[in-house]
């Protein structure tokens, strides 16, 4: 029998509504009890005094680059970066080489994760074969092999008919359909958010409408098919409004936002630093305000990082030649605390929800709570200690973060997966 007692911390468990000083006892990988002065004399003890003890954080949107692009990230290094960011569970997107569009690739990822990953890794399968947007992938077989959702993230399904069929099929397997909403005709050739800054910098624009028209299309298809539909990395004010409207009409619709989309704007691009280049692009102040309003009002279900590692050589180029995407696992809690909690926009329990019950509900995962019998995944973090993010010390294989050198107030302290500490800040 293995056990662990996390004592002295402030426990926040949105699923049960608990928020108070308590100990958490994990036995044989499962939550045994949450309460005061728990009696577990033989158990190893973790001192969480002055810290927040929460259900293990879930990042439902990461890119692990394995198989195929292992020079940028592997399942092992991505999982370590996740642990160092306070995440106990990550869901990896299908745009590997080969694309995760078959049970074979899904099984490979599941198996590799079991061997080398220090956190839970759940694959997301492709919607279409090769993510080419034409023929449906082996969705049923991938479901049997362990995928938790389907998405052609990074290569959105442009054909509305194909998306409709995917949604119909996803319903049968009770899978959520996640779309990277981008009309590729409207965004073609774009480098950054289309607006004042793109005009000033002479960079080609990616208009907000390229996201909005796809969100609108998908919401209509979700209504028609009855599918569970989730908007990945939502970034515009109109998309927030459309999701809110669909939700008010009872549709099974959800959305996530990334920390970078609520923490910074397109004004950061003045230096043509490719670490600010991602899709969707950093938007303008009005969009950031709307996203934060969506977080406050409850329209937004989850914070997800869209952790997208790229090797240094790929990012050391002219801005317009660099690939899109930034890493994000290790800075997510710091940014969320700084921009949302410390600025008084949301209570701490709401932030915990966005990392736990929020994504768990979107994907129907049996995680994100500290109720007795639940998985022994715990995230311990700190509210006030100041620290600086040094990208050279990142656990990720890649260094493409715009937050290098940023000072944070509060951040991850320890990550416990299945009752085992897998990382703690030294």
């Amino acid at each position: 029998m293995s056990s662990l007692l996390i004592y002295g911390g402030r426990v926040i468990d949105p699923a049960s509504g608990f928020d108070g000083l308590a100990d958490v006892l994990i036995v044989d990988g499962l939550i045994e009890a949450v309460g005061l002065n728990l009696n577990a004399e033989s158990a190893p003890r973790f001192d969480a005094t002055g810290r927040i003890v929460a259900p293990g954080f879930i990042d439902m949107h990461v890119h692990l680059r394995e198989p195929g692009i292992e020079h940028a990230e592997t399942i092992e290094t991505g999982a370590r970066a996740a642990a160092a960011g306070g995440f106990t569970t990550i869901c990896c997107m299908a745009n590997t080489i080969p694309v995760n569009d078959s049970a074979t690739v899904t099984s490979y990822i599941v198996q590799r994760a079991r061997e080398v990953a220090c956190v839970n890794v759940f694959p997301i399968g492709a919607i279409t074969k090769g993510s080419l947007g034409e023929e449906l992938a082996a969705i049923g077989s991938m479901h049997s092999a362990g995928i938790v959702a389907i998405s052609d993230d990074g290569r959105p399904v442009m054909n509305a008919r194909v998306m409709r069929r995917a949604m119909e099929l996803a319903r049968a397997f009770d899978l959520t359909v996640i779309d990277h909403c981008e009309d590729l005709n409207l965004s073609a050739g774009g480098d950054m958010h289309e607006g004042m800054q793109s005009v000033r910098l002479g960079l080609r624009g990616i208009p907000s409408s390229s996201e909005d028209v796809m969100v609108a299309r998908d919401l209509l298809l979700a209504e028609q098919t009855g599918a569970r539909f989730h908007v990945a990395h939502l970034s515009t004010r109109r998309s927030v409004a459309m999701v809110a409207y669909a939700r008010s009409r009872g549709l099974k619709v959800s959305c996530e936002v990334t920390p970078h989309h609520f923490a910074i704007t397109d004004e950061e691009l003045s230096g043509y630093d490719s670490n600010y280049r991602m899709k969707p692009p950093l938007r303008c102040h009005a969009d950031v305000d709307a996203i934060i309003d969506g977080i406050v009002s409850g329209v937004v279900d989850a914070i997800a990082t869209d952790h997208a590692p790229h090797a240094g050589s790929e990012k050391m180029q002219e801005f317009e030649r660099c690939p899109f995407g930034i890493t994000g696992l290790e800075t997510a809690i710091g940014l969320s605390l700084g921009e949302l909690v410390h600025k008084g926009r949301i209570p701490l329990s709401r932030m915990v929800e966005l990392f736990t019950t929020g994504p768990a509900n979107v994907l129907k995962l049996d995680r994100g709570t500290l109720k007795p019998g639940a998985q022994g995944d715990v995230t311990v973090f700190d509210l006030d200690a100041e620290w600086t993010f040094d990208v050279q010390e990142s656990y990720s294989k890649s260094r493409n973060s715009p937050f290098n050198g940023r000072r944070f107030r509060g951040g991850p302290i320890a990550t416990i997966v299945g009752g085992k500490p897998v990382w703690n800040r030294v």
Partner: protein
Amino acid sequence: MTSELRTAGLLDIESLDRAEIEAILERARFFQPPPGETYRRLDSLKGKTVVNLFFEASTRTRVSFEIAARRLGAETITIAAQGSSVSKGESLVDTLNTLAAMRPHAIVMRHAASGAPRFLARHLQIPIVNAGDGTHEHPTQALLDARTILDHRPSLSNLRVAIIGDIAHSRVARSNVHLLSKFGAEIVLCGPPSLLPRELAQLAPGVHLAWHMTEAIQGADVIMMLRVQLERQHEAPMAAGEYFRFYGLRLEHLQLAKPDAIVMHPGPINRGRELSSEVADSQRSVILNQVENGVAVRMAVLERVLGS
């Protein structure tokens, strides 16, 4: 000399202040040759080496920079990206690092990617003079345009300047807007909607937008025509053949401008596309003065960037 010019070179007009621009324009006037003579030869940059690195084809800007450097006694080496290591797959940073290791005193660079000079300035210690970056800025073009206007007008203030054509893809337009705005000029940007993003109106104080040439040219002191940049356009802004009809400058348009209005063009001109042959060859055209001033302005810029 400000720290920006000393350390980073000249990357854009936007970050220059008015006094700095005035100093360059004033010094350029000193370098202008007297009528009928060629440029005086000086040796203020003797012993300095300037590398002209052109990743995009260019004749006038490249030659203009070369002559400017040599007139000041500097040595110049010009590298066209075609046939260099760039075509062998070397990255931009590696190319520049290699060149910087040979210790030139400045690099004059033209590149098809917006922001490439700014990106390099962050990674290199050597001053970089931007000779045009993508659709961002072309600072020496705006300086020579200003010098040319000042040869015909006492001041840049209170001028009405119409800039017509493919504004969206024009680095010349952006640099000119920033420069002219700093001196209080009124600037009308004119072009078909897809080449005239609405946000341009907020680019700098004094900017207005117009879809029709008659509106733009009305009362203008200066008419700047831009080249149609087919190589940067991903789609046609309007039906083929309509462009010259609606955005080509013809003699009859000049009636709307001030009687002594001047017509400018950064070149190379496409006769019959953005302006008619009659306009290009008319008394109003100062296109060749612009070319001439290019050398004087670039001498002034190189002297400020490299001068001890």
